[in-house]
């Protein structure tokens, strides 16, 4: 069968156009007003690339390709329709799928080509398969923890990092041997197996609070494994897509690690085992002031500037739609209401913004930490809903605190602080929050959703200013 000589250049050009569209796609994500064009560009690029590939010389079996594409679509649609609170685990799952694909292709290529593999190809193929396998199991673990199928608590033991590094070293040593002796086929499954195991062990010591960093890091690994696959297949399009994804994940993990005050090295090694020394539990009993919904409503109604600090607890209580009603009620009274978003609010980068946007809160009311922190001294009321550690002033002042140095929202500088909380139990990380004992802090005890609802009712009927 003779393919026309023009086919190859045509394919290359579709790949080139697809690469341009992929870059534009990310560029248009810079602003919400153009972001949806970005999705379109990505979709068109993807279709072009797949169409170009189908023209490729030597493809004889179209039926099975079509069947696989249809099956994948059937799985993909429900995964595209999950609830917004479930987006983090969906994302982790799709990192796993992506890495799964890369690992399978790498494995198939190895068995097709071995032992006729150049050293360089074998080296990148090993990198592809090691990164792919550990991202596959690591992402499944992360998805399991986020979905709460697996325990969220970090599991740690002495020498854990050493054991984990040992597994990685064994996988890399296997890869090294294969580079020198590409015919050693029996070594390949060992390398894959150890990498799969390493992926599991890597996530075991990581707690729920660290998930934003972990997901970003896995994103980066998935991209790098795809780029390695591009080297194996000599596909520039794959190298480009992988490099874009890898750098995106890398940037996000650096942002997340900074927001959690973790070092750069921690990010690279992924070894962020939780070092939470059980914060001294039995301290002297401190007093807090509490208030009712009626009192809270009166204070809010009299304010000029209100900043709401939402945390993941708000999403867990499904309170975001009630918060939207509160926003409406206060805005109608002429109160300036904004939302302060800490980078790690939520379970993945930017998650809180999505949850609030879903509740129909305009995005120009959502303000990042660095932009809002200077404004807390002029803020009449800071209302904390379901957030804890990101408001803890101990991070600024108490060098013995486990979260010392972590950038926080300077909520304590507002004139009045209100905190909606179920009780006085410490938060996710088990660290006491001195914010609650300040003279200007009012604790609003109760479920976030019903308490906000009560405030809205008071604003509507009760407190008629």
């Amino acid at each position: 069968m003779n393919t026309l000589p023009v086919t190859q250049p045509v394919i290359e050009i579709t790949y080139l156009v697809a690469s341009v569209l992929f870059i534009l796609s990310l560029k248009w994500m810079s602003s919400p007003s153009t972001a949806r064009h970005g999705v379109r560009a990505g979709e068109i690029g993807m279709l072009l690339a797949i169409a170009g590939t189908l023209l490729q010389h030597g493809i004889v079996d179209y039926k099975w390709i079509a069947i696989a594409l249809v099956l994948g679509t059937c799985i993909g649609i429900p995964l595209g329709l999950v609830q917004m609170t479930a987006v983090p685990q969906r994302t982790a799952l799709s990192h796993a799928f992506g890495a799964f694909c890369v690992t399978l292709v790498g494995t198939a290529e190895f068995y097709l080509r071995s032992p006729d593999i150049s050293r360089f190809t074998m080296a990148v193929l090993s990198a592809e398969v090691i990164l792919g396998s550990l991202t596959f199991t690591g992402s499944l673990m992360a998805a399991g923890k986020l979905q709460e199928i697996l325990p969220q608590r970090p599991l740690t033991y002495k020498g854990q990092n050493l054991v984990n590094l040992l597994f990685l070293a064994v996988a890399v040593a296997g890869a090294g041997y294969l580079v020198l002796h590409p015919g050693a086929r029996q070594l390949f499954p060992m390398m894959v197996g150890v990498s799969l195991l390493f992926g599991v062990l890597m996530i075991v010591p990581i707690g729920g609070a660290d998930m934003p960093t972990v997901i970003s890091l896995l994103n980066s690994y998935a991209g790098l494994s795809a780029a390695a696959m591009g080297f194996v297949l000599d596909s520039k399009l794959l190298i480009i897509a992988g490099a874009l994804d890898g750098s995106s994940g890398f940037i996000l993990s650096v942002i997340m690690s900074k927001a959690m005050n973790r070092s750069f090295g921690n990010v690279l090694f992924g070894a962020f085992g939780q070092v939470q020394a059980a914060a001294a539990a039995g301290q002297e009993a401190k007093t807090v002031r509490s208030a009712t919904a009626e009192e809270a409503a009166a204070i809010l109604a009299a304010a000029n500037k209100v900043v709401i600090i939402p945390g993941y607890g708000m999403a867990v209580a499904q309170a975001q739609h009630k918060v939207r009603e509160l926003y409406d009620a206060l805005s109608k009274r002429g109160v300036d209401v904004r939302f302060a978003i800490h980078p790690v609010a939520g379970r993945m980068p930017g998650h809180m913004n999505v949850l609030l946007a879903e509740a129909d809160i305009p995005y120009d009311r959502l303000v990042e930490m660095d932009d809002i922190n200077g404004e807390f001294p002029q803020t009449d009321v800071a209302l904390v809903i379901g957030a804890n550690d990101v408001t803890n002033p101990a991070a600024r002042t108490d060098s013995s605190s486990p979260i010392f140095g972590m950038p926080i929202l300077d909520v304590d500088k507002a004139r009045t602080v209100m905190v909606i909380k179920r009780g006085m139990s410490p938060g996710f990380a088990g660290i006491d929050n001195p914010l609650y004992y300040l003279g200007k802090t009012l604790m609003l005890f109760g479920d976030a959703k019903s308490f906000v609802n009560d405030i809205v009712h008071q604003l509507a009927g009760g407190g008629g200013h």
Partner: protein
Amino acid sequence: MSSALINGLFVFMLAAFIGFEVIRRVSPLLHTPLMSLTNALDAIAVVGAIVLVGRHESRLSFVLGMLAIIAATSNIVGGFLITDRMLKMFHSSRPTKP
């Protein structure tokens, strides 16, 4: 071979730089949709799997290729779908920009 390697490394280096510059400008507001979008784009790995299945060189490569196409396609479809759903929800309190 070595020229393909050098070409590949140049492409990787340039794409990584573009990636850094472009993604640094993405508003933190959109970091979640950014991640689901890059995830969908990353599923371009499907082209490698399509070639494996289409050439049908061995039973193993065929089976692994089929599974790989299914996994990657679900990422493409699901990734673009959820990204668009999320972006649809973002709207400004100012009706139109001047």
